């Protein structure tokens, strides 16, 4: 009986509101954090930090941002990358143009700017419903990219339009090494992840889900649907903005507007479809999948069937497998990997008993 629920009753409201209701879960989460903060830095290498862990964390955060909007508040968006771009370029400019502004403050300001832009492009959602809304988010996608390409002021008139990360110093510590960048990213992601968990399990989260499940009924019980939707856009874009800034600063170290194109928006949408809509954990599972799957596949082909598959063909197959997985999940498991994980836990609970 690894996973036992009995004997742990919910007695008070405070208890109910905690992140994890079971002692095992709290313990597991604490162990996971300890592992990520203390053990990983000493056992990881450059490749793991730069090519796997950092992108995994940043994409999880981006997925989280979109999930708040789409998974919780039910507003489909194809413009996630645009808000990431706003976050990245805004952070860059705050950092560049305000002398002595601490990096973390630039980051938060960048996120807030993205949130503001998200709010503006969320305005049509007050009148447009369902997937007609993708027009507004696609407008954001193309417009934002155009602005950053066309107005070179945003990239400090660099001839190539590429922005590069400033040295990463936070509270006097140097975070420029791969480990440092990993720890910085991890801290931001964990903090924002816990914040998101609080939001969705509270009143605002309930309002989002109410609007998602049935907006007419939500209005009838007195929820302000416009305000709820706009908050979803703003907060989601804030998260995406921070993710964009991390993408540019701690992951790649450089970014051009094209790096936040429609493909990126799709990628983030896929994270939440595969990971699970309306789940915080799902974003991490989905991002892990999207980062690891191509690497596994290419390792598989070069390791097991060395040379049997042309690398180009492999990528085609990968694309097809991705597409097929999206459809598979939509058909068989609309709640994504998060649900799969729950099922596994459910079985752990009764294991080794048969049922």
């Amino acid at each position, binding site marked *: 009986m690894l996973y036992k629920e009995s004997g742990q009753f919910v007695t008070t409201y405070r208890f109910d509101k905690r992140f994890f209701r079971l002692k095992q879960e709290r313990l597991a989460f604490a162990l996971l954090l300890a592992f990520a903060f203390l053990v990983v830095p000493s056992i990881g290498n*450059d*490749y793991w930090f*730069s*090519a*796997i862990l950092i*992108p995994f964390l940043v994409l999880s955060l981006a997925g989280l941002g979109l999930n708040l909007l789409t998974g919780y508040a039910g507003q489909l968006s194809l413009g996630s990358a645009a808000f990431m771009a706003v976050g990245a370029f805004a952070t860059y400019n705050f950092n560049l143009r305000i002398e002595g502004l601490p990096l973390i403050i630039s980051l938060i300001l960048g996120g807030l700017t993205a949130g503001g832009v998200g709010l503006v492009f969320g305005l049509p959602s007050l009148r447009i419903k369902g997937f007609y809304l993708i027009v507004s988010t696609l407008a954001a996608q193309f417009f934002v990219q*155009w602005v950053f*390409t*066309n107005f*070179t002021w945003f*990239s400090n008139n660099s*001839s*190539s*339009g*590429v922005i*590069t990360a*400033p*040295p990463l110093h936070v509270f006097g510590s140097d975070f420029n090494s791969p480990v440092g960048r990993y720890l910085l990213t991890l801290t931001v992601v964990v903090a924002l992840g816990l914040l998101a968990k609080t939001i969705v399990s509270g009143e605002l989260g309930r309002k989002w889900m109410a609007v998602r499940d049935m907006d007419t009924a939500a209005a009838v019980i007195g929820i302000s649907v416009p305000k709820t939707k706009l908050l979803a856009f703003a907060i989601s874009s804030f998260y995406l903005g921070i993710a964009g800034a991390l993408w540019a600063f701690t*992951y*790649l*170290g*450089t*970014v*051009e*507007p*094209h*790096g936040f194109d429609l*493909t990126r928006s799709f990628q983030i949408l896929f994270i939440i479809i595969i990971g699970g809509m309306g789940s915080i954990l799902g974003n991490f599972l989905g991002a892990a999948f999207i980062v*690891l799957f*191509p*690497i*596994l*596949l*290419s*390792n*598989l082909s*070069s*390791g*097991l069937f060395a040379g049997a598959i*042309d*690398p*180009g063909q*492999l*990528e*085609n197959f990968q*694309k097809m497998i991705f597409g097929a997985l999206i459809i598979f999940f939509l058909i068989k498991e609309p709640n994504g990997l998060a649900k*799969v994980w729950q*099922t*596994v836990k459910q*079985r*752990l609970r009764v*294991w*080794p008993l*048969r049922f």
Partner: protein
Amino acid sequence: MKFLGKHRWLLLALGLGIASVTAQVQAANEQYFPLQSYRIGPYAAGGSGFFGGFIDYLQYVNAKEGGVNGVKFTWSECETEYVVEKGVECYERLKKGLNGAPAAATNPLSVGIAYATLERSTADKLPLITINHGRTDSTDGSVFPYAFPLQLNPYSEVSAIVNYIATQSGGLDKLKGKKIVTLYHGSPYGKETSPILELLAKKYGFELTLLEVPHPGNEQQSQWLTIRRIKPDWVILRGWGVMNPVALKTAQKTGFPANHIIGNIWSNSEDDAAPAGSAAKGFISITTHPSGTSFPVLQGINQYVIKAGKGNLQDPKRFGNVYYNLGVVNGILNVEAVRVAQAKFGKRPLTGEEVRWGFENLKLDDKRLTELGALGLVQPLKLSCADHEGGGAVRFQQWDGSKWNVISEWVQADRQLLRPIIEKSSHEYAKEKGITPRDCSKETVAAK
């Protein structure tokens, strides 16, 4: 595994993946090239040609000479799909070498990937070769010790084009009053040369109009109607991918003659012209690597590699085309750099740092190019600590409806004019990043 039920497949996949990262084999006397190649996606045509040519040249050197001084070349590919983060992953995965063979240099053939791996390359002491592209100011090797925009940077590119237009018009002084339109791809790459063009326009007195085509460039009606109204003498096409054939088709539609359109370095392949069909006939473009199979080195590759059935190209018809030959040129430059470095450091597999020395002391004159069988294919080149570009010359070619024909000798860019602009930019970069430029006068020179 009972409790996993229907999700067993997940574990299985995971297990297979882990098992595939197999143990390393004992090192051989080999020099390794990590290849961040791209063979699918929107730019696949360029990637498969370039990396095909590069690989075939390495095979050729291995087969003909047994490598360089007995050190054979080895390589492995990692598909980037031209996507930056995939390129970074590939870089991080491959930079350590293969089975003990050290990596010599990376050649991503992608501006985005080059930018994203620039600082990593410097930190890892691994040369980053961006032949004909990359960051213009990385020409200044004192600030960018590990980046090499070999042969031609974007600034030289436009300067050479303007010089060519001048010779067609009868001299630089005849440029005055000419109308030139530059049609550029709506991306940082497309806009990069705009300030230089404006500078040249002011200097020589020609009328310049800059027109942007939004990515990807499927629709250019409005731009070409505007061109039709301006009636320029020349149109410089700074295109990318599908934008090129569409430009040529739309030019035909609006009655602008193709033989007054000059394509830049990313508008110069068969894949840029051929899809436009008859509309491309007469189209002129620059090249640093003329197409064709008559060069002795190409004949050699044909004999040792292609005929042996080891050619990398899926479609043998593409042998000798523009991208393939760029790959061959890139192969020649990389291998020669290794050769130069071996002369100094010994006949063994070299580290990235040692190969960099080779690049900085690379000197290809007509004599050496003749020995390599690459006279006319590769421009004479001399690199140094301060100058990581080296050449700055292009030849012009014209599309006859089915292939490119070279129509000029090497035309030089005005590199003296550009150097101060480049240094200004590189010094700004150095300041922003806190880099102290190297003192190039103190670098050791090749012992010849």
